[in-house]
């Protein structure tokens, strides 16, 4: 793999904004499991990610330093007593995207923490995956995340997925000052110490959201995973301007009053592509002849493959992330440090909004690792994540056009997303109004015994989860004047989502210009790698 220094030479700090000129190379965009190679109109602003920050030279040393010099708490070793009960909670497979090369940073943290616990005479240790209402991780995924040694020592009795529907497995603490239910995994709440091992990919993650969301149940999540809270959240990526984060903070503070929580937060750089696909993280201007050949070869091969095979191949390519920082200690001061570092990697300053914003939507989202990016997840990627990847105001102007490049195929994974299928086919034809959907159907889905069973015993997302996906897209839907999906292979998926479709990106741009005017400004956000625009108006 190319050394980071060499890769960094290709960029200077200000080169992440490119204005398309005559002779500019065509841009590579993800469109599901395929790549588009598109010439954009002159004057189009191409916003690229910052180059990856240098990883810490010694990850283990950085972890040790963090747990020995924590923020707002005593060092971890000073909190340990022989015979105490400790629970270690871990972020689930939704982070990072795609899953990182082994050893996963969670494994590295665990190896250090578990050794420390053992040396301190702490034997009653459980490892719980904080999957909230996400699907349970499979055995293979769990093993990959922690490595063979920890797997052998802890699975299955002391290493397992959180079960939000276990009638004996949850406890309810006192409510917040706003009446929000605070429910927590029983094992975690009855522990003398809860250690939370986090991976921070974007500023939305971590902090109070870790425990208060990851180890809770439907009743508690309802407090903030609802359309009203989402509408009141100006930016999901700025905790201070997010009603969702204010709610999770209130919940988190109640948890912190009842339970000693020691956070270990890790921040990764944005190096999602390594080895043979490393060129995907570069700007097209910097492509070598070899990069161009690789791209053409990949596109030719992908065109001939069935989609399931392409999906399999993409999901098998791990991210080449490096750890750029580790912070530990109490919730808020630790997370403040994490956010600061996260912004340094992901924030890209941009002058002004655009009338039209283009996103290539890749094959993966937080909710379909090793699965299909179904229409609801396409919706959450477009209107939820990509639209919201900003600080300050959205990149697209109010009433502007969002163009998403994706085939919008009508495919669902019945093992991971059974309730999504019913939501999409039964509810969306009736209404797209998030408020109506919440009041009329959310509880019915959440308590559907088949969905509860599939969540608890299979590998399915909870029955309430498709609703969260729809709410997540609420701000994008409310903000954009029009959403066009370019390259959609059918009419009915865009129609059910309330979008328009075109065969090609050029047609989508033409249609968007027809809507916004010929002089409309256009931006292309080149994601992945992940970036967040910092828009100055």
């Amino acid at each position, binding site marked *: 793999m190319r050394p980071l220094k060499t890769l960094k030479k290709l960029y200077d700090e200000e080169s992440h904004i490119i204005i398309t000129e005559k002779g500019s190379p065509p841009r590579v965009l993800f469109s599901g499991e395929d790549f588009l190679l598109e010439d954009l109109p002159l004057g189009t602003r191409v916003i690229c990610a910052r180059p990856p920050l240098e990883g810490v030279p010694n990850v283990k040393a950085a972890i040790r330093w963090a747990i020995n010099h924590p923020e707002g708490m005593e060092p971890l070793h000073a909190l340990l007593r022989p015979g105490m009960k400790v629970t270690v909670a871990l972020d689930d497979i939704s982070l990072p995207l795609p899953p990182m090369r082994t050893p996963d940073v969670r494994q590295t943290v665990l190896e250090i923490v578990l050794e420390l616990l053992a040396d301190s005479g702490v034997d009653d240790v459980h490892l719980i995956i904080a999957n909230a209402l996400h699907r349970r991780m499979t055995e293979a995924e769990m093993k990959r995340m922690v490595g063979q040694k920890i797997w052998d020592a802890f699975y299955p009795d002391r290493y397992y997925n959180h079960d939000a529907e276990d*009638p004996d497995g949850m406890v309810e603490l006192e409510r917040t000052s706003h009446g929000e239910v605070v429910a927590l995994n029983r094992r975690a709440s009855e522990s003398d110490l809860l250690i939370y091992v986090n991976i921070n990919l974007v500023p939305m993650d971590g902090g109070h959201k870790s425990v208060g969301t990851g180890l809770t149940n439907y009743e508690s999540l309802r407090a903030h995973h609802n359309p009203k809270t989402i509408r009141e959240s100006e930016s999901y990526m700025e905790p201070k301007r997010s009603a969702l984060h204010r709610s999770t903070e209130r919940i988190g503070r109640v948890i912190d009053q009842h339970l000693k929580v020691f956070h270990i937060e890790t921040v990764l750089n944005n190096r999602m592509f390594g080895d043979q696909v490393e060129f995907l993280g570069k700007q097209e201007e910097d492509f070598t002849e070899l990069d161009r050949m690789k791209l053409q070869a990949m596109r030719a091969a992908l065109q001939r493959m069935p989609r399931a095979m392409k999906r399999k191949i993409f999901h098998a390519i791990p991210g080449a992330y490096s750890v750029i920082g580790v912070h530990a200690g109490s919730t808020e001061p630790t997370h403040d440090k994490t956010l600061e570092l996260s912004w340094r990697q992901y924030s890209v300053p941009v002058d002004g909004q655009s009338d039209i914003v283009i996103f290539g939507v890749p094959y993966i989202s937080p909710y379909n690792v090793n699965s299909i990016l179904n229409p609801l997840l396409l919706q959450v990627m477009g209107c939820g994540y990509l639209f919201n990847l900003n600080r300050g105001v959205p990149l697209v102007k109010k009433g502007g056009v969002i163009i998403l490049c994706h085939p919008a195929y009508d495919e669902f994974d*019945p093992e991971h997303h*059974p309730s999504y*299928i019913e939501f999409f086919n039964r509810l969306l034809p009736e209404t797209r109004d998030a408020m109506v959907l919440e009041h009329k159907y959310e509880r019915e889905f959440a308590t*559907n*015994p088949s969905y*509860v*069973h599939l969540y608890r*015993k299979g590998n399915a997302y909870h029955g309430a989860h498709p609703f969260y996906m729809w709410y997540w897209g609420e701000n994008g839907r409310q903000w954009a004047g029009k959403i066009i999906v370019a390259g959609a292979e059918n009419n009915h998926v865009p129609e059910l989502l309330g979008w328009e479709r075109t065969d090609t990106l050029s047609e989508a741009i033409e249609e968007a210009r027809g809507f916004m005017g010929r002089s409309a400004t256009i931006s292309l956000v080149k994601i992945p790698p992940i970036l967040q625009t910092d828009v100055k108006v």
Partner: protein
Amino acid sequence: MGECACTLDLRLSPLTSWYKPPAPMLSKAAFYDVDGTLVRTNIVHTYAYYAMNRGSLSGIAGRTIGTIASLPLFGALDAVNRKVFNEFFYRYYSGLSEDRLVTLAEDLFEDVLKPAIFPKAQDLIDEAKKAGCRIVLVTGALDFTIRPLARHLGADDLIANKMQFNGGFATGKVIPPIIEGANKAHAIREYCVKHQLALDKSHAYSDSASDYAMLAIVGRPTAVNPDLRLRSLARAYNWPVLDLR
């Protein structure tokens, strides 16, 4: 006192006269097929147990040999027509005393049915109860053979076939209509009407495509441990598929 007056004012206020309380919501039920869905046995296992406990050595030998000899016929009939299979099969009960059948049912449950309950079956029923569903087992088996199982699983009701008795002995005929296929659907519909249950909010669970009618009639059908035909139907209609094994 002030509080009472306030409440009264609100009730009488013309501003709230437009408000109509929502119509009472009908309750819902979860209907479960039994054989292959909740337990891994079927009605032949049940009968075999009775045959093995005939009482006299000659009786045991006769009925057991007869049952074994008829297995290929049972298989063929079941594959062709479940209704014909049931009618044919229940003739084998002819001559058995009612007392003995009922008494042996408890042993049958302990020895045969209880060990054969799928590990996750109880969880599924508990989850339906938690969701406010009335639990009803719907089976082509004879009612007295399933009653202990229904009690064990916490079912509220049982829809099953009833054997005709004459002078305390089974005639080998089942009181019509035989609970199978489309008749299961009829029985479920009648049950919902009788108990004020909303069919479109109710759930049904089965392992076999022969229960298609029962699954299609409710609003929330689910295939459980499905056979190939039911699995493809479930995929086609986007029904959830569970594995309780």
